């Protein structure tokens, strides 16, 4: 079936009145959502859209918090192990560095990307976008940044690392004295913030912001 040119959604406003489920290709008319509401696809059950309960200002504040907490989590030691009065602690960078030296460069690169580079890029990019989105504007570089954020998707793994740290602590606890360091608390905070941001539907920024000059 083909649409005649008259009812074709060729202009931007008509196109924005429609919504296509990214999981099954079903077309819907977009309905305005109230705060905290979500729309679900009737065919496949995927979430179509979610309206976050928080404005750009609130999110920006959380992103700044995330940056501070992330810096602490990365720079401070995570745990200290003790054996016969000898103590060893490790930061994220020690973890990456030892894996590189121990013939596991692949793991070192994976850890550096998913635990440091990508999360940091995400925090900076989101902060930059939200800084302008507060007043409904699009930041310089809005398009490539939004595309990059989409592709970064599941490649930030700080929350997996936190669980890994817990497992390591339980394993090490059998043979060593384990002393928690500030880094592990920072990671706990970071995990909470990640949970908040997991509920944010970033693609709404496309609709909520306007180009500066046409």
């Amino acid at each position: 079936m083909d649409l005649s040119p008259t009812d074709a959604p060729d202009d931007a406003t008509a196109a924005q009145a429609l919504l296509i489920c990214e999981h099954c290709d079903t077309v819907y008319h977009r309905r305005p959502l109230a705060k905290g509401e979500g729309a679900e696809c009737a065919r496949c059950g995927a979430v179509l859209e979610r309206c976050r309960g928080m404005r750009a200002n609130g999110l920006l504040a959380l992103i700044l918090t995330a940056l501070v907490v992330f810096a602490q989590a990365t720079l401070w030691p995570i745990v200290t192990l003790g054996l016969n009065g000898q103590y060893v602690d490790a930061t994220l960078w020690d973890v990456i560095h030892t894996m590189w030296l121990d013939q596991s460069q692949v793991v070192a690169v994976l850890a550096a990307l998913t635990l440091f580079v990508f999360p940091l890029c995400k925090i900076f990019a989101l902060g930059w976008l939200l800084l302008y989105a507060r007043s409904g504007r699009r930041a310089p570089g809005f398009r490539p940044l939004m595309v990059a954020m989409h592709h970064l998707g599941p490649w930030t793994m700080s929350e997996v690392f936190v669980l890994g740290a817990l497992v390591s602590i339980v394993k090490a606890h059998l043979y060593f004295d384990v002393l928690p360091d500030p880094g592990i608390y920072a990671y706990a905070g970071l995990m909470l913030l990640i949970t908040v941001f997991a509920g944010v539907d970033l693609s709404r920024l496309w609709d909520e912001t306007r180009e500066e000059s046409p």
Partner: protein
Amino acid sequence: MSTLPRATELGLIGCHVCGQVCRAVDEGDGVLACPRCGSSLHRRKPAVYARCWALLIAAFLMYVPANVLPIMRTASLGDIDDNTILSGVVELWVKGSPGLAVIVFCASIMVPMLKFLALSTLLITCRRGSNWARRQRAQLYRLVELIGYWSMLDVFVVALLTALVRFGYFSLVEPLPGVVFFGLTVVLTMFASMCFDPRLIWDGKEDSDD
């Protein structure tokens, strides 16, 4: 159910990246670009079967050594102990906490297995245009996408223990090749699930009973 219109039927394309609704002008499906974000537009992701099978098979080839080879060596006072993924889980169950052992078992053994089984089931049924349990298969795919990256758990455990347990002759942990293969398995399965297009689940003939 069958009254819900699909984008292909209406001559529309939803951008994979930004969700923009575009009118499919060209039937050639060549180099259409999204007017909003500039990404290339496809009705369906390109070469789904070839890419997905290739990545899945590559991941499986990595998965065998990842499970057979030890991932970590613990040396303490000259006593050397090599651990595989499974023996690590068993050790956690016996000596540490069974609860955590269950989590590690799920993340390291069940999740990769689930990914292999789920993605091959999806690929085979979609190729046949099957209309069997469509909604459930769609949910299965979303589950795979959601939990896929948690398999990195064991890799991070080995990395952290290696960095921490450095007591020279008294106690030392070293990573062994198994962990590299395991890391590669996780990355390849993640790429495989990203290459799959869940729209294919709904592409066969529409069923009447639903």
